[in-house]
């Protein structure tokens, strides 16, 4: 989330989140909504620090859904889905990656600001020791 330069290697603190898809009728749903993408307007993203960041962000979490159970939070930026990079994806490609019918489980790598701060705090405490 910090110092995002398109095309350059990105360093971020990520959290692994595993979501089991829930079957609702004919569909397998994950229980959250995504926004963003390289074909979208990054200036309208309320969750990003850098308004040029065209990554995929979690915009809504359905209460009681699988995503909420898996501790996915609103405002998370999705970096990888099942090993596939999500930082340079169009919105539709991202949607397709998440909604593959033959996958039951999606393993996400997400990053959020609180993660970085937590790491910094813990590292600072370690160094003091």
């Amino acid at each position, binding site marked *: 989330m910090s110092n995002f330069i398109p095309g350059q290697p990105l360093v971020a603190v990520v959290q692994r989140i595993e979501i089991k898809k829930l079957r609702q009728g004919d569909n397998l*749903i*994950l229980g*959250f*909504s*995504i*926004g963003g*993408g390289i*074909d*979208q*307007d990054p200036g*309208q*993203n309320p969750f990003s620090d850098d308004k040029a960041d065209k990554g995929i962000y979690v*915009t*809504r979490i*359905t209460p009681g859904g699988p995503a909420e159970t898996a501790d996915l939070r609103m405002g998370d930026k999705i970096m990888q889905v099942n090993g596939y990079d999500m930082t340079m994806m169009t*919105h539709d490609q991202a*949607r397709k990656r*998440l*909604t593959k019918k033959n996958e039951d489980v999606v393993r996400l790598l997400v990053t959020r600001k609180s993660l970085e701060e937590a790491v910094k705090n813990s590292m600072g405490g370690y160094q003091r020791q």
Partner: protein
Amino acid sequence: MDTESTYSGYSYYSGRSRGSHRHGERSRDRDRHKSRNKDSRSEKSVTINSPPAEPLLGDSSVRGGEQVQDDNWGETTTAVTGTSEHSLSQEDIVRITKDLEDSVGLDCRRYFTLTLAVVMGLLVFLTPVAFLVLPHLLWPEKLQSCGTACEGLFISVAFKLLILLLAVWALFFRSPRAGLPRVFVFRALLAVLVLLFVMSYWLFYGVRILDTQDDNYQGIVQYAVSLVDALLFIHYLAIVLLELRQLQPCFSVCVMRSTDGEKRHYNLGQLSIQRAALAVLEHYYCDFPVHNPALLSASKSRAAKHLAGLKVYNVDGPGNNAAAGMAHSQSRAMIAAAARRRDTSHNELYYEDAEHERRVRKRKARLVVAVEEAFTHIKRMQEEEQKKTPVDVMDSREAAQAIFPSMARALQKYLRTTKQQHCHSMESIQQHLAFCITNNMTPKAFLESYLSAGPTLQYSRSHWLARQWTLISDASVTSGLSDGCVFQLKCVDFSLVVTTKKIPYIQMSEEYIDPKSHKFVLRLQSETSV
């Protein structure tokens, strides 16, 4: 005298044909000797008056105490400088002399200029002809016979002279629009140039051809042709200097009338101040609504009431303070008192204005109805009907007279309310009515000229056109317009203040945008639930 001495450099030009920009060849006018006499009789209507310095208490001192009046009377005379005293007496003299020889003097000057111009013109035109004819008269036996080329040149001389004649007639022989205070510098320069030129040609001719009795006639003819060519080029120079140079707008002038603040803006080219003043006056007659002194009486009465409200008494007695100090302190005291007192005149003004507006609107409504009704009484009759029915037929003037009485009262009341009654006489109203009837105009069209004040030219000329305009300017009136220059045009009732601003230099650059480069994208913000 200050005003005279500053322009000593111009006295040469000023003496010459002052006040007249007359028929035709002003450019050819050149009489140095007469100018000396004319200088002494210089009209004060010419230029450069320093605005008279009136002391602040000019009016109020009269209403003050008796002792105050004496001292201020002394103060007033010392404030008037030597210049204005002299100019006052000069004005008297000039007025007297003008009364005595007014029309005679001016006409003399104009006709004198005209005859001089015609004489010069004839001289210039006949010079080439003289060049060609003199050898035949003086030494015909020695002269070589004129061959084909030479006779061809005769034709060319003839046609060029004809063209020159037409061109000079077109450029210079126009009825003059105005009499300006000083001579046109450019016309004077052109006249000098032409005369010098012709003189030098005559000199050359006299020395090299007449004295030596040259027998090469073709050379003489070519010489005459070259003279005519050069005259045509001088005429071209005249067109450029006199006509073309001021066409491109360079300055924006703002003209404001001193009595009611009417303001207009015009674009002028590079003109001398007197020509700019002339252009401004012509625009004034066409654009500005007519000057109506009756509309200004209200503000004057209000001003009088302000001053009448306060009286200043000198408690200390006369002669204690210096006259100037007392004048100052009195004026300051008055201003302070006026600021402090509770003035309700704004209230009166507001209600008066509202009342006046209501009255005007009521009268206007009555007038419109009366006129519309009057117009329904007459009907235009067609040709065929005229022969068929033997009804009493009137022409437009009689028709106007017939319907006029029904609207006369309403119209007069309206004009009285809007204080325009002296602008329109009954005769002029009836004429206008006949005019409108003849041209099939509606009642509204007839009324338009009475509802709003039109430009000065609309009204009968003799009554409204000022006879004499005075140009008051710091800079010399033959110098060109410059940025920030201010001059005044004064007539008897009011004055027009003209300020000049230069139109700025515009630096423009170019940018090319490929028409194919206009591309657009949608601003998307989709949110998909997964």
